[in-house]
């Protein structure tokens, strides 16, 4: 019984044994008169066989067997029929069920080992497979867009970058990026190969919530597939800039003219002589600044110094400057001059190396520009500001703020040469990197890659408000879960109801609306397949056979068919009945 043999009704063993022995005794007694004849012994033997059969019939002996009852196949999207067939050949009568999102799997209840075929089960349904031994076998190769990444939030004037990967591209097919009006913006032709990477960079022309389309077209130009690229473009606010110069320079003059014309509030203070200044106010009220105080600096986003005024800062002014940068996020730009490169690290924590290059080439068509013969020392916190992958400036994070300088010399020459666009491009690049951003009272983060209707969309909210409430489109409240290590972080789950843009907001704060895009059923299918596949692979591990322990438990005790016992019983009883009549 021990080596893989057991009785299913083993608790009946003793009463049954006794009963059988009694019955055998009765038979022996009944036939005792024939004792000595060979018939007697035959009868006894037959009775023994019959009784044993009966005995076993009731006790149901079982043997361990590779059974299929403990295993099942879960079929998900994209499974291969041949794989299923070969599995079914190995495990006869194995049950299989197709996974449907939103329905719980019914076969899971009485199995503990599963074969997962296809691309896998979405993350939010992993709980159904919890505690089971799952063998993820994968499915058909995915062909189509497997990855689409793009900027989801940008400011007007910034570029939208779209990066996408196409698996198993068809030759001569096209990827076309179209704007929300349907005007084609850019296109890439597929090449032969396993995967195709496409990258688009376009500049949206207006602010708002937009959905561009990434279309796939065949060689004839017919639409094959279309994927939405949703993003939000925000407007920008003009800057408040303070320029402090010890003497007027052309560089400052052109910079201030450029900024003033672009609607920024600029205050220029150039020193005339000791304690006498020339103040120029552009687009702002006439409020002079003599001393740098934290209060005065609060009104500014950016402070532009020439090297001399930076050097001549007093100790208190220096402290104020540092604090303003660290706490208020003030940006500081130091206009380079020859003296800049002689400053000690104490004075300016940016290091330079001489590179003896006095020319730099920028833009398309390339345009030569004067530069100081130095390069930035690439130390860790220093962040380069690049244009066309050439470093033109760099900044150092200082708390919330930044302090930076550039290597360019006489950029105003560009304006004189009739290239104001290049001038604008350079200074936009530099200043954008330095100016602080508004601080939103709440920040949102959609964790779910591809939110869909009636599927959970997980998101994080960061907000100092406590307790925090979130509303779904100003109607119903959404419960949130506060993060333990970071108390300002809250987690929520929303089941979006409609396709397209959906909103979440904090009722107490009207500015903190969060828009996220909900994809339709036929959108991003291949991307989510790929995602699901990768998640499943990570979670279950591909091709790893279910471990030994699982195999053991799956050897189920199968009762030996009662027919084996019933037939001898019937035969023996029949013999016992027939024998006297012969």
């Amino acid at each position: 019984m021990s080596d893989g043999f057991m009785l299913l009704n083993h608790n009946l063993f003793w009463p049954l044994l006794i009963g059988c022995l009694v019955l055998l005794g009765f038979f022996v007694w009944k036939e005792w008169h024939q004792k000595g004849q060979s018939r007697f012994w035959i009868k006894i033997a037959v009775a023994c066989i019959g009784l044993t059969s009966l005995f076993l019939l009731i006790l149901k002996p079982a043997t361990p067997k590779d059974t299929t009852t403990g295993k099942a196949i879960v079929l998900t999207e994209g499974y291969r029929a041949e794989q299923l067939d070969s599995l079914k050949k190995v495990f006869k009568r194995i049950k299989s069920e197709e996974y449907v999102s939103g329905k719980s799997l019914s076969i899971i209840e009485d199995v503990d080992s599963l074969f997962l075929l296809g691309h896998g089960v979405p993350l939010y349904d992993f709980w159904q497979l919890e505690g089971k031994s799952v063998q993820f076998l994968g499915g058909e190769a995915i062909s189509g867009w497997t990855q689409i990444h793009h900027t989801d939030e940008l400011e007007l004037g910034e570029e939208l970058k779209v990066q996408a990967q196409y698996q198993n591209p068809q030759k001569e097919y096209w990827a076309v990026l179209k704007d929300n009006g349907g005007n084609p913006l850019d296109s890439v032709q597929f090449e032969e190969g396993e995967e195709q990477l496409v990258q688009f960079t376009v500049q949206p022309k207006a602010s708002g919530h937009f959905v561009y389309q990434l279309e796939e077209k065949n060689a004839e130009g017919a639409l094959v597939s279309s994927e939405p690229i949703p993003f939000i473009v925000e407007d920008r606010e003009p800057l408040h800039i303070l320029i402090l110069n010890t003497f007027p320079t052309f560089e400052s003059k052109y910079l201030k003219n450029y900024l003033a014309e672009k609607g920024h509030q600029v205050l220029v203070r150039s020193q005339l002589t000791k304690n006498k200044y020339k103040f120029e106010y552009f687009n702002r009220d006439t409020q002079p600044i003599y001393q740098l105080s934290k209060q005065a600096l609060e009104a500014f986003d950016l402070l532009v110094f020439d090297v001399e005024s930076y050097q001549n800062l007093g100790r208190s002014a220096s402290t104020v400057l540092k604090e303003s940068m660290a706490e208020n996020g003030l940006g500081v730009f130091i206009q380079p001059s020859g003296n800049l490169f002689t400053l000690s690290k104490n004075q300016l924590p940016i290091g330079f190396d001489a590179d003896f290059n006095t020319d730099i080439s920028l833009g398309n068509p390339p345009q030569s520009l004067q530069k100081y013969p130095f390069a930035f020392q690439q130390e860790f916190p220093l962040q380069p500001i690049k244009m066309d992958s050439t470093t033109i400036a760099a900044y150092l994070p200082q708390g919330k703020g930044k302090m930076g300088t550039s290597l360019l010399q006489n950029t105003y020459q560009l304006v004189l040469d009739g290239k104001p666009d290049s001038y604008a491009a350079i200074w936009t690049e530099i200043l954008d990197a330095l100016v602080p951003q508004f601080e939103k009272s709440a920040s949102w983060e959609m964790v779910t890659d591809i939110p869909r209707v009636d599927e959970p969309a997980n998101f994080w909210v960061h907000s100092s408000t406590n307790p925090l409430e979130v509303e779904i489109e100003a109607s119903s409240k959404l419960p949130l879960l506060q993060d333990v290590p970071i108390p300002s972080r809250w987690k929520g789950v929303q089941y979006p109801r409609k396709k397209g843009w959906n909103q979440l907001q904090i009722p107490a704060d009207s500015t903190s609306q969060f828009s996220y895009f909900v994809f339709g059923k036929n959108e991003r299918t291949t991307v989510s397949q790929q995602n699901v596949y990768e998640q499943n692979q990570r979670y279950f591990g591909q091709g790893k056979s279910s471990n030994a322990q699982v195999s053991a438990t799956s050897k189920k005790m199968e009762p030996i068919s009662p027919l084996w016992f019933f037939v001898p019983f019937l035969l023996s009883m029949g013999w016992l009945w027939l024998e006297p009549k012969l």
Partner: protein
Amino acid sequence: MEQLQHFKSRWQRFQYVECVLYAVGFGGLVYLLTKNLGFGLVGFMVAFGIALVLNKPWKIKTESVIAFVDAHVPEAGFSSGLLTLPTDQLSNLSLLQRHRVASRLKDLMPKLMPPHHLQKAALVMFGFILIGVLGRYVLGDFSSLSSKKGNNKEQIQFAPLDSIQEGIEIPELTETKITVAYPSYTGIPSLNTSNPNIKAVEGTQITWNLTFDGEVQEVIMDRMGELIPFSKNGEQYQLSQPLQSSGFYSFTFKDLEDNAYLTDLYSLEVTPDNPPMIEITDLNQYSYFEYNDDKTIPLNTQIFDDYGVNDAFIVATVSKGSGESVKFREETLQFDGSISKGNKQQRLKKLLDLSQLKMDPGDELYFYVEAQDNKTPTPNIARSETYFAVIRDTVTDEFAVEGNLGVDLMPDYFRSQRQLIIDTEKLIQEQPDISEYDFKFRSNELGFDQKSLRLKYGQFMGDETELQDAPGQVSAVEEETHTDEDGEEKDILDGYSHKHDSENEHNLVVEHPEKDEEEEEDPLHEYLHNHSDPEESTLFEKSLKAQLRDALNIMWDAELYLRLYQPEKSLPYQYQALEIIQEIKNSARIYVHRIGFDPPPIKEETRLTGDIENIKNVDKNESFEYEMTFAATRKMVARLETLINGNSQFTKSDNTLVLEAGNELAQKAVSEPVKYLKVLQGLRDLEKTTNRTKEMYVQVQKNILSVLPKVESNPGKGARSLDEINLLYLKELGDYE
């Protein structure tokens, strides 16, 4: 009985189905031909009705069922009628028969088919549909042709600007006649059209004739903001405008109730009348001839113009001489044979004979072909490239001009007085060593020099002189190179000596033609306005004139003694003259000095005290109105996106936005009307309430996006959020330093 009833209803059903088949066939035919489901449905209904009336399936009576059954089922024994009768009215025999028939019919009836024409009906239905499909193909081809035509023949359509009250009769435009009268020179006959999008040659006169059905207050044409009223001409409204520039226009009219109606925007496109194109074949840009060559140039030219060439000729310029003395002569030559005016293509010939043009060796000929088209009032003129023909000269002469000709003249004259003194002193010194003749000759020479000098200064004074041509001689002298100052002085003096006369003779020998011209030019011209009139001499002030006069008088004395061979007596006068001249020179210097910088007086008491208390800060305040390019249009794009998503309704503020966007785009549109027409049209359409549909929004947005330029670079402040983790990270970065 029951079986009979069943059969009857089956029969009826068959009839109904038949009707339906006919009706479907006919309805399908109508639908396919009209492509209108409504018409199809109506056709179906009508056909169904007719079929029902004809077939009357509800009128099938039990009697006819009985007759049919009796006729077709022998087992019924012509007694199926018994089944309909109530049992109590029947005799026993009848009852028996009835029972018999009923039991037989029970099995047979379900198999019995009622009389029907289903096959026929189905055939008719398919026939109809087939005809419909064929008809659709035929009509489809035809209508696609006609719709193409229809595009061309777009009609002017008015739509009310605002939703108007019910019951008001809208005046309707019954007839549009646009007459496009091309300028007569184009030779294109005037065109009558109803298509309001007009493309025509510049200068075309366009006349719009609009006839309305109903009373209309006024009709106005809005041409890019310029409002031009129509004149009423009987029943018609008429407006005539010359086509000068591309643009858009639309019409508005007001009915008697002051409701305004607006048309779409239509384009006016000017195709310019291009200037003629001149092609000269087989001719090198430069041709060179030796003096003994056959100096002819065959000129073959082809001239094309879009509406006709009016005139063509050759403009030939002959240049003679070289350098400063070059002379030009321009001639207009006609081609051989006359020009057939108004032809679009002309092939013209001319054999240019250089000797006929009186060209000598060394002369050059520049020529080009000029052609005019028949455009009125001002024809377009085109000219070909210039071609050159040169007859090589047998000799070349070098001609050089010194760089500093004439500029330094005046100081030289002044200096010569000093030179005279030096020479006189030298003469006195050398007197014992030289012969008397020599002495007298040199003294006389000096006297002549003195005279020349006097005359020179006299010229400044505007005196008549014997040596009218002195300046020219001076310039001739100046041609020679002078190495040092003394040499230069000598040269000038030589110029006034006897030698000069011979030199003048020499000049005559060379006889450069340009010399003649040059001599007319006075190098002092710039200094002296008019030498002959003393009153107009403005070079010197009054006192200076007096001084100069004194100097001249003294020079007379100096010359006198020199001529008398008494140089030592002449010397004091010479010194005196030099002194006065020196003074005059200095006065000229002061004059120059006077126009210089005049510094403000310095307050000595505050100088160098370092007191800047009274110096004030300089304040400068300026404001710039900055708006992003196409700001309203960009807003419009975002607004349309929300409208497309159905998140909001078109409001009044949207109307102003549409208007602003339209204005922004219109400025751009003037240069490229066709590109912007769609956009502007779309925006205008949004002004009409009926057009505010999602499709329209999408269309307008697409068009706007296609013409919007890029956002210009401008730094700005965006929004971001910093959570605690990021802050901690930034802080760590700071600590890292």
